């Protein structure tokens, strides 16, 4: 009986944009055990509430993660607004929705590229990221930054997007969609992609639900849960259905993300059509006192913030439960019995965002 090979995988590894570590035990190339280890990015920024006031914490929240930085800011602000009972103007809500959906497009295409790269498909990675730059240009034009936007604030948003710019954005997105389509078809149909993704990292519907999987991982296993359905920001008024795939493997998760790109483009179109005119922020006075669990759908899934204010500038507790954190348990499950070559693909399939996981 062959013995095990035990090797470290990460924290520094070409396939991992971020440090995570696994002790992998393999036999031939079959993974018999994979124990994850975290903490390489642990900053303890939740404790910064002691040092930064609740307004400045918005900057911190944005820097929990650089990929869906915007949504972190949005989640934080929405939570505080809820505690303080601030009525955010509708235009701000729509703008938040638009930026959030743009973030999702950017994040998903970025992920698709990384997934292609994890499977050793370099050209697909390159082309995905080429398409993604179009979205980054929109960001830079509207917020002034390519990845960290800094447009959220408690009570609304800092920058407005003019209506004609919004129209132009929709046009740009159409172009992007046209360029994305052939790439999406590669993800959907290509033989080698299917070879690498199909039947890899199986996570049954029951396991996905029980182990607390979120986002595309959950929806790829056939469970229709999407926190946007809670109706925060402008989602209440937009028409969409959670995207669900049933094959429960890496391929399903990939397809969920491909389809969500199209869905997000559609949501932005709807939002641009419906966006009302008006102010973009609401003056906020006083300090938060109370508690709230704020839930949002990030590209990687549902994120939960718990905030507790005590009437001073500094919060008592700011707690972030990010999607990746929730997906760690399913990840361990998925890694059981896979091939060594699947490890990068499976790790990527939860779209790990370690910086937010460890905060």
């Amino acid at each position, binding site marked *: 009986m062959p013995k095990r090979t035990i090797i470290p995988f990460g924290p520094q590894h070409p396939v991992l944009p971020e440090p995570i570590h696994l002790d992998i035990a393999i036999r031939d190339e079959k993974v018999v055990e994979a124990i994850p*280890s*975290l*903490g390489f990015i*642990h900053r*303890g920024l*939740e*404790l910064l509430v*002691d*040092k930064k006031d609740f307004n400045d914490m918005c900057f911190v929240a944005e820097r929990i993660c650089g990929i869906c930085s915007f949504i972190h800011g949005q989640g934080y602000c*929405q939570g505080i607004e*809820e505690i303080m009972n601030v009525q955010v103007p509708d235009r701000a809500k729509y703008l938040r929705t638009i930026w959030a959906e743009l973030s999702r497009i950017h994040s998903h295409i970025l992920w698709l590229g990384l997934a292609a790269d994890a499977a050793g498909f370099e050209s697909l990675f390159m082309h995905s990221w080429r398409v993604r730059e179009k979205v980054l240009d929109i960001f830079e034009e509207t917020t002034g930054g390519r990845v960290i936007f800094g447009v959220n604030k408690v009570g609304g948003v800092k920058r407005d997007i003019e209506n004609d710019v919004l129209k132009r954005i929709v046009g740009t997105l159409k172009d992007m969609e046209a360029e994305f389509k052939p790439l999406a078809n590669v993800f959907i149909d290509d033989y080698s992609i299917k070879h690498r993704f199909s039947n890899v990292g199986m996570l049954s519907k029951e396991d996905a*639900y*029980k*182990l*607390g999987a979120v986002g595309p991982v959950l929806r790829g296993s056939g469970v229709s*849960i999407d*926190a946007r*359905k*809670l*109706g*925060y920001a402008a989602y*209440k008024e937009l028409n969409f259905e959670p995207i669900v795939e049933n094959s429960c493997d890496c391929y399903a998760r990939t397809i969920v993300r491909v389809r969500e790109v199209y869905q997000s483009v559609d949501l932005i179109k709807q939002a641009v059509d419906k966006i009302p005119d008006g102010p973009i922020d609401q003056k906020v006075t006083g300090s938060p006192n109370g508690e*709230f*669990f704020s*839930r949002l759908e990030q590209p990687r899934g*549902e994120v*939960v913030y*718990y905030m*507790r204010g005590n009437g001073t500038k500094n919060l*008592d*507790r700011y*707690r972030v*439960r990010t999607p990746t*954190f*929730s997906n*760690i*348990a*399913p990840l361990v499950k998925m890694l059981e019995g896979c091939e060594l070559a699947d490890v990068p693909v499976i790790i990527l399939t939860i779209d790990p965002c370690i910086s937010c996981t*460890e905060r």
Partner: protein
Amino acid sequence: MIEKQETVTIASQDELLKKVAEMSSSGYRLVLISCTKLNHFQVDYSFDKNYEFRNFRFCVPVEKPEMKSISSVFTNAFTYENEIHDLFGIEVHGLNINYGGKFYRINIKAPFSTLKKAVAVAATEEGKK
């Protein structure tokens, strides 16, 4: 926000475990376990089913920082509970995967529990330099 958030405070650990088992059997999933240090440790177990958010609160005294794991009911609880152990210094009994304090591997023991505001301010001064 259209969702309704309900928080129920529960007195004893055993009752909590019963409640958790009940949640599991009625098809809820564990969304979050979070801990907050007030005068005691406030531990919140949050569940969700069909976007319905239910939250059970349980208090752990600072003097005796111990609690029981729910990882036998919800396997994925181990991440939260290990985190709580590392950050708050609460001993969690009955973990299915116990990292034994190596989850985050921070040098400061239980920073969320011990770090006083005074220390924080000192750090701020240092940061300014």
